[in-house]
């Protein structure tokens, strides 16, 4: 269960948000929305434990994630703005080594399956530098299929550069993950409908007035 | 602000920039006065009381600035690293600001030691610069200070600058004894007799007193200047807070 307690964030000279509170138990789709530059990515990075908040805590199963460190990260898959893809490695090599370095080594079958699910079959041995933006994004997203059991996904604009089919598949995947009792935190400016048992929304208003959290609906699936 | 929870309030209350600012303001004149007084006494001893040296004549008197400056340069580096470490571990902004405030004074002391070393070298050895062990170590120490200052200057985000500087200072502190030892070795092994313009002439007691008083004077000066610089840093870093705005509005920086 992901919990945020009195979270305050400042970047450079600006206060982005303060006193943010919410909980996201298993089965929650947490959507973070708002105009550009208001602090959505900063919030995600704080949730990941990459960025230290000015005050407040992020808790995973009751413990501060900054203290949990590796124990938190083994439960987390983060797909940020950048893909983490090396131009001079093939698609398969990229996915394999990313899994290894993340501490989740995967069998060749699993990797092949993940690449298949993102529609990159036939491209496994192509150098990533020859791929389109959308295809590189898929390599990053393939990590979600490799680590399907990770209880927490944090995704920053995952639908960027995907075509209509890709968007549909990804939203289905996210919905499935949430239905399985996991938590997904998502920043997206695209209002993609995703079916989830419990939806939580953090809305960033513009102009430095911070963020508010609300529960959209509790629904039975 | 950065006050911690009650149990530690005694110590951490002073860690608030707001509390420390007026306190520092009161301390600056006090230490300035002490510095001036001790400097007068020290210079008096240095120039009028201490006897002429048998081998080096009058030019040796620069030792009364050179040695205390060298001592302070090393001492200040340790203090700077200490406060930077405290700021990193306890996440107190004021400690980090203190480290940032110390660095320029430390660099100045190092530069002074090098400069006076050169002026000592000229009449004694005929050259402005000699690769003497202590001078070389001081030069390296100067680079360590400049590196710290340059790193903090290059980073826009103050908290990142604080923490990065702390890591650098700590790595530096661990290396300072290693560097010193290496340079000593290097100096003795490459020359038969150790070239040392900084080996003090056999010390008359008055000479020792002179150096100690001067060292104390430099210490008081450093405290005064560092606290003054710290106040400027506090004002700049905390400029968006209410209490600073209040001070500036009323036109009183006390």
């Amino acid at each position, binding site marked *: 269960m992901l919990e945020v307690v009195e979270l305050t964030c400042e970047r450079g000279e600006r206060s982005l948000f303060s006193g943010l509170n919410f909980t996201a138990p298993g089965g929650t789709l947490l959507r973070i929305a708002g105009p550009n530059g208001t602090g959505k990515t900063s919030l995600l990075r704080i949730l990941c434990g990459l960025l230290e908040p000015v005050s407040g805590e992020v808790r995973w199963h009751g413990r501060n994630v900054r203290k949990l460190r590796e124990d938190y990260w083994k439960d987390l898959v983060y797909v940020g703005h950048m893909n983490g893809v090396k131009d001079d490695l093939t698609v398969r090599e990229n996915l394999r080594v990313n899994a290894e370095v*993340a501490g989740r080594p995967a069998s060749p079958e699993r990797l092949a399956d993940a690449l298949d699910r993102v529609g990159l079959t036939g491209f496994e041995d192509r150098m990533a530098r020859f791929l389109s933006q959308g295809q590189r994004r898929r390599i990053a997203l393939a990590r979600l299929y490799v680590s399907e059991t990770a209880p927490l996904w944090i995704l920053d604009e995952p639908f960027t550069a995907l075509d209509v089919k890709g968007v549909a598949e990804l939203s289905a995947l996210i919905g499935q993950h949430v239905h399985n009792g996991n938590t997904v935190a998502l920043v997206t400016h695209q209002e993609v409908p995703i079916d989830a048992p419990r939806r939580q929304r953090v809305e960033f208003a513009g102009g430095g007035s911070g963020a508010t959290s609300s529960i959209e609906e509790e629904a039975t699936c | 602000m950065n006050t911690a929870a009650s149990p530690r309030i005694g110590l951490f209350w002073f860690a608030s920039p707001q509390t420390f600012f007026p306190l520092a303001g009161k301390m600056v004149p006090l230490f300035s006065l002490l510095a001036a007084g001790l400097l007068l006494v020290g210079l008096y001893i240095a120039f009028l009381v201490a006897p002429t040296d048998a081998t080096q004549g009058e030019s040796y008197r620069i030792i009364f600035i050179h040695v205390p400056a060298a001592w302070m340069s090393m001492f200040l580096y340790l203090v700077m690293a200490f406060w930077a470490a405290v700021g990193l571990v306890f996440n107190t902004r004021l400690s980090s600001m203190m480290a940032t405030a110390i660095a320029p004074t430390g660099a100045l002391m190092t530069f002074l030691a090098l400069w006076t070393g050169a002026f000592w070298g000229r009449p004694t050895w005929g050259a402005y610069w000699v690769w003497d062990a202590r001078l070389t170590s001081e030069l390296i120490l100067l680079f360590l200070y400049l*590196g710290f200052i340059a790193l903090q200057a*290059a980073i826009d985000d103050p908290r990142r600058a604080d923490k990065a500087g702390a890591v650098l200072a700590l790595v530096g502190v661990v290396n300072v004894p290693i560097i010193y030892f290496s*340079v000593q070795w290097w100096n003795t092994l490459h020359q038969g007799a150790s070239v040392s313009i900084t080996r003090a002439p056999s010390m008359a007691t008055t000479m020792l007193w002179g150096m100690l008083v001067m060292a104390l004077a430099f210490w008081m000066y450093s405290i005064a200047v560092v606290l003054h610089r710290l106040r400027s840093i506090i004002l700049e870093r905390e400029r968006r807070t209410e209490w600073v705005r209040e001070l500036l509005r009323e036109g009183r920086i006390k």
Partner: protein
Amino acid sequence: MLRVLLQVIRRDLLLAVRQKADVLNTLFFFVVVVTMVPLGIGPEPNLLRAIAPGVVWVAALLAAILSLARLFANDYADGTLEQMLLSSEPLTLIVLGKAAAHWLVTGLPLTVMSIVFGVVFDLGLQETGVLVVSLLLGTPVLSLIGAVGAALTLGLRGGGVLTSLLVLPLYIPVLIFGSGAVGAAASGVAYAAYLLLLGAFLLFASVLTPWAVALALRISVE
């Protein structure tokens, strides 16, 4: 745990092999500096023999500094670095892997190249051997300490010069004992102590610098 270390090394080696330019740049710079010195100083063999250890070592130092910018910059730019920071494996191990790969691609070729320089400067068999061993022990330390500088200056403007300023004072002990070892061998004096000391530096650096680098990376990526 060892697995992630090897995987990191493997990735970086694979990239280095495919992007040959970087490796060749470093090696080329090393060769250029060393060959320019006799041209600048004069061909007197005794003089060259005397300055050879220092020249080779300084050139190795400069080549190492030049290559530091690459250590984390690419990973930072393409998002690989932040994924490393979110690994469930210890970051210190990953960092050790990065430094090891860096050494394999810069320090090790330099060390091998120095055999040639032993000949070029007419150093004699034993002195050349000591030169090679000193570089073998010292260049990994340069990679490790350099990693601290590279991590602290990630993404900053004026990066290269700033990194050099930070890292040079810390390199000096390695330089002194590295070239000192060869100088001792050339003078017929016992050189074992120097090499042992370099070995001690290496152990010390391998254990301590990964912590500093990991901390610096987290600070820089915030």
